[in-house]
């Protein structure tokens, strides 16, 4: 298992690194040269229309959770993401909806040959977007979002308190950009989305509070904390290149999510850097009811 993990880590790390640089280089080269007229490769959905993209993800994960250990862990991560864009009534202030759900599973090793840790995490966001800039080749949307994140670390070497669960539910902002351009005779699109939570409620044990005591004494209240950027900095960032393949849209991207928090007297840092590939489809919604 260790050998497979290390190989996965190496391969995914190289893939992610390489992909990020290649994508950046391509974009920097292509964008100034050939921004063409309006294309329909990834238009914002109209009223009662939904665009949904499903992607597989592979990448690296980096974690440190002082409830379980004073050490840092690095490894490989696999995941699945679903993104959605929905058109609401055009006269509304928030005329577009933006959703994102993902689930990641990661295997990590202590770089010094110590223990290993598993990560299960999931993020769900729903943004209500104001179409701030609307051009033939470019859409810029911004709006409030509700978010929830749940992360679970399982330390395989730690038999007494092997698991730490942390998460938050809160509100924040979502920014979504779509740029359409033409290159090599094909219509293409580039997207970037950023979610940042600002305030809400977080769950984390109260310093050394054992989970057994939470259950035994019903002391969940002390594990709930108000979160703000002062004690919980988190973001999810996606960039993706959209390429037309017949009636579908190939979506090749890169997702980074990071969280740094200090809740209940313990600090936690976790970052996933994921290379993603999937397809986008456009649906007509028959009825909202």
């Amino acid at each position: 298992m260790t050998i497979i993990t290390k190989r996965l880590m190496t391969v995914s790390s190289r893939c992610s690194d390489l992909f990020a640089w290649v994508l950046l280089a391509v974009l920097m080269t292509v964008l100034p040269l050939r921004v063409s007229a309006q294309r329909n490769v990834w238009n914002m959905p109209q009223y009662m229309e939904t665009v949904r993209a499903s992607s597989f993800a592979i990448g690296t994960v980096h974690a440190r959770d002082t409830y379980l250990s004073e050490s840092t862990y690095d490894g490989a991560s696999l995941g699945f993401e679903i993104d959605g864009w929905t058109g609401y009534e055009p006269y509304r202030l928030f005329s577009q909806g933006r959703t994102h759900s993902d689930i990641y599973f990661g295997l990590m090793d202590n770089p010094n040959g110590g223990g290993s840790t598993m990560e299960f995490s999931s993020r769900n966001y729903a943004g209500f977007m104001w179409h701030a800039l609307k051009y033939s080749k470019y859409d810029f949307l911004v709006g409030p979002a509700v978010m929830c994140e749940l992360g679970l670390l399982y330390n395989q070497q730690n038999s007494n308190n092997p698991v730490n669960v942390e998460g938050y539910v809160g509100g924040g902002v979502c920014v979504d950009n779509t740029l359409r351009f033409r290159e090599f005779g094909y219509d293409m699109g580039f997207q970037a989305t950023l979610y940042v939570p600002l305030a809400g409620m977080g769950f984390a044990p109260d310093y050394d509070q054992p989970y057994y005591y939470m259950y035994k004494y019903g002391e969940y209240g002390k594990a709930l904390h108000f979160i703000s950027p002062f004690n919980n900095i988190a973001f999810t960032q996606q960039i993706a290149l959209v390429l037309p393949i017949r009636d579908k849209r190939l979506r090749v991207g890169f997702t980074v999510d990071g969280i740094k928090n200090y809740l209940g007297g313990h600090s936690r840092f976790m970052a996933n850097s994921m290379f993603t590939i999937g397809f986008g489809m456009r649906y007509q919604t028959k009825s909202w009811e």
Partner: protein
Amino acid sequence: MMNRGRLNLIFAMAVLITALLPVSCAWNSESPDREFSNTPKGNFMALWTIMDEHYCFFDLKQEKLGVDWNEVKTRYAKSISDEMTDKALFEVLCNMIGELRDGHVNLTSSYDYGRNWSWKTDYPANFSKDLQKKYLGIDYKIIGSGYYYRILDDNIGYLVVESFESATTSGRLNSMFGSMVLCNGLIIDIRDNGGGNLTAAEFLASHFTEETVTVGYSCYKTGPGHNDFSELYKNELSPAKNDIRWIKPVVVLVNRGCFSSANDFAFTMKALENVTLLGDTTGGGGGLPMSSEIPNGWVVRFSSAPTFDADKNHVEFGIAPDIRLDMKDEDLLSEKDTYIEAARRFINDKLVNP
């Protein structure tokens, strides 16, 4: 004036760069917390600090054993050098945490399990496995992993609980109590039971009370200070619902080998009306353990949440029995277990003089 297309492009690029900024930040981010280096000195400091911020018995150990954790650091730091081997480092670190004389404090590496078991080894064993086997015979019943029983010749039940690593079941206990319905009493032998799960100990104890009883208290650390503790939470033992409950006399046999959840079982049972503890003071282990890791991957286990008995006394140094007894050499020679024989006499006396 800049044309609209170029303006849009600049805007898009600005957004792109802004959007990529967090990516690069996360990509290159280092943990904001203190990092101990993976050197002998770094590992030494990591271990000392983890214990300093999370171990729960410093005041108690200072009072009873004279352990000053800052003095321990100064003393052992002199033995640490960057040239020392891993095994030498392991020995020094084990000796350092061994000062606390706590069975729940251990350091685990790939080649050894650092411990200080003086809570057991410095005292008489008061237990013979061979004698226990003789009393159990060959036709004893097994009602779970480490749970064995038989009915002794004088109509007294004898239950051995080797470990609380796993719990038995209601059905099995009901079956045992059913077969002992005509017995005059029950001896529960937990000698050399090194503990396991608290829930397994509580589950067994819940079959010996008819009402909810306050058996102790617990708290946990709420911060890095040596005295940062939560309020005390009451530990109540409720009767096992829908199960057969034993209300006849019970004698629990204890020795120095009773540790951790076996220690919890001892003070829980001691709080019950029909139960008598017989033997030697238990080994202790009154702190719920947690674990952490130091930079080289060695795992440190430590007591982090103290437990108290019904009178709010620490149970870290063990539970005194109601009847203090030592195994007699002459009994051993005649293949008699002093503890079991004393327990039988106690129950039979109770029958005559309730």
